[in-house]
């Protein structure tokens, strides 16, 4: 049987969910949102793909091993705290700058956004390793990481 409705909805909704997750992550520093909810929202996109097309398809769409994704996110988040230490300020202090964007008073960018990006990846990676792990079935029991 080919669940047409499910496939169509998943194919339409997964990009929307990913886009919303990015919006949440980007706007999150000053208004509600942030890397954590963003990452969760992104994980729902892949979970939806998994329900519709099966575990291998969702894993393929993720491209990177979820544990590595989480590890990379952790590194990004930690790294975002290092530049202020070079200036002699405490770890994770925010450094902000304004990028000149024509037509506006500039785009505010800073290390906290890098931190949010890291958290986004950590949450997405961790949630996906749970979700994919639970869907794996009972053929493998030993945890395999970094494979």
């Amino acid at each position, binding site marked *: 049987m080919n669940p047409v409705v499910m496939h169509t909805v998943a194919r339409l909704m997964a990009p929307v969910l990913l886009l919303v997750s990015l919006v949440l992550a980007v706007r999150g520093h000053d208004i509600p949102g942030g890397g954590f909810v963003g990452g969760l929202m992104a994980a729902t996109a892949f979970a939806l793909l998994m329900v519709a097309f099966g575990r291998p398809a969702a894993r393929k769409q993720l491209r990177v091993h979820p544990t590595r994704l989480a590890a990379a996110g952790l590194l990004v988040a930690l790294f975002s705290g*290092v530049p202020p230490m070079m200036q002699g300020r405490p770890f*994770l202090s925010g450094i902000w700058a304004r990028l000149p964007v024509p037509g506006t008073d500039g785009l505010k960018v800073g290390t906290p956004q890098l931190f949010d990006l890291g958290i986004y990846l950590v949450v997405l990676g961790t949630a996906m390793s749970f979700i994919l792990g639970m869907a794996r079935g009972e053929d493998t029991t030993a945890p395999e990481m*970094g494979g």
Partner: protein
Amino acid sequence: MTPSALLSLPMILCLGAAATGLLTPSRAWPRRWLALMTMVSLSVVGAMLLVTVRREGIQSMQVGGWAAPFGITLVADLLSALLVLVTGVMGLTVVSYSAATLPSSKEAGAYYPLVLVLVGGVCGAFLTGDLFNLFVWIEVMLGASFVLLALEARQEQLEASIKYMSLSLMGSVVLLCAVGLLYGAAGTLNLADLAVTVPGLGTPNLMTAVSMFFLVAFALKAGAFPLFFWLPASYHTPPAAVTTLFSALLTKVGVYALARVFTLVFTQDAQLTSTLLLVMGGLTMVTGVLGAVAQYDMRRLLSFHIISQIGYLIAALGLLTRSALTALIAFLIHYIFAKSALFLVSGATARVTRTYDLHQMGNLYRTQPLLAALFFIPALSLAGVPPFSGFFAKLAVIQAALRAENWIIAGTAVVVGLLTLFSMMKIWREAFWKAPPEDQPQEPTRPLSLGDGVLGPCMAMTLFMVVLGLGAEPLLELADAAAGQLLNPEEYVRAVLGGRP
């Protein structure tokens, strides 16, 4: 390096190395060397932190520059710095022992990243300046320990990790309740801020109730009577390196948290907490050592000794005098090394005899004289025989009890010391002295080799015993200074809150 960088580096190093390790290809050598290098740097950072705190007093930093009590605070007094240094040294020991004993397929997996996360969590718990972050770091550490325990997924390990996990999580729930209640009552969780606000709250009974929640939660993490079941149920199942890491670090975080909370925050009802801690400590000592006397599995026996030694620490905390806290800190350091040495040696004997069952061992004294010596010294040290470190540590506890005129604790400590000696001699007699059992299987499994990688860490630990025994004076001096800081929270409060009244 600035003190604020020194304070955050232990966690950055460990977590960063864990993440980098997971990103490297799944082979043994990059992950092993990364872990080794991280532990070396952690030890160096710990030493620098200790020197800085010793020279310039308590150091604190506000993560992200958000001022206390609103932001996340990291604080290092002498006790924290000393424990971070010991954590680094133990991490280095355990990683080098793992490199020599574990199959490379396991080294290539998530083992080293998990060890690094665990060590990072422990350092975080020692350095954090507020209770919620203490809870978080304890969870980080426990999360890593759950996976480490179950990593080989053998049946007895899974059984052990279910017991360990369910009881630990129960403790975590109690801890979270305690943190929530305290936040509701005091409006802050920053330890220094609590030290200022709690005495003036006007709800002493509520504070006593909350402090009992903390007592139960941390006593469970420390493995104190009557909340220690999880420890002997689980510690004998993972590889020897993992057991060593657990025994060296996990329960100590519980003891550290008890010492921190009951010297800094809940000091107004000292009579009640001190009585409870003394009773708890005494019973922990006795039940632990009695459990050990009954065991014939080497690692189970040693696990029960962890409990019994935790009893000394909790009893010393219950006395709450300067000399008792000095004894607590000296004993803590001595006992991390002594217990680790014994667990490392138990792993080495198991490589030779292929068993942890004392009945089936024998004659190791003749076949492995060096190993025998490496067992003998920490065993005597743990039992408190001079001239090793255990003697001075135990003597300090007993003297503190005598000075506080608490004859029961002093007497219990002496008797438990004798029983410890007795059960250590049991291992000695069974594993090293007696003739090997007659009914050996026809074709015994080939013993694994004992290279420098196995014996080296054991030797290093034993050397610490001797050095800390012969040179006990500097350690006791340092412990005395650390105890002084614990008993005078003003300096801690000033370091965190600055000039704020």
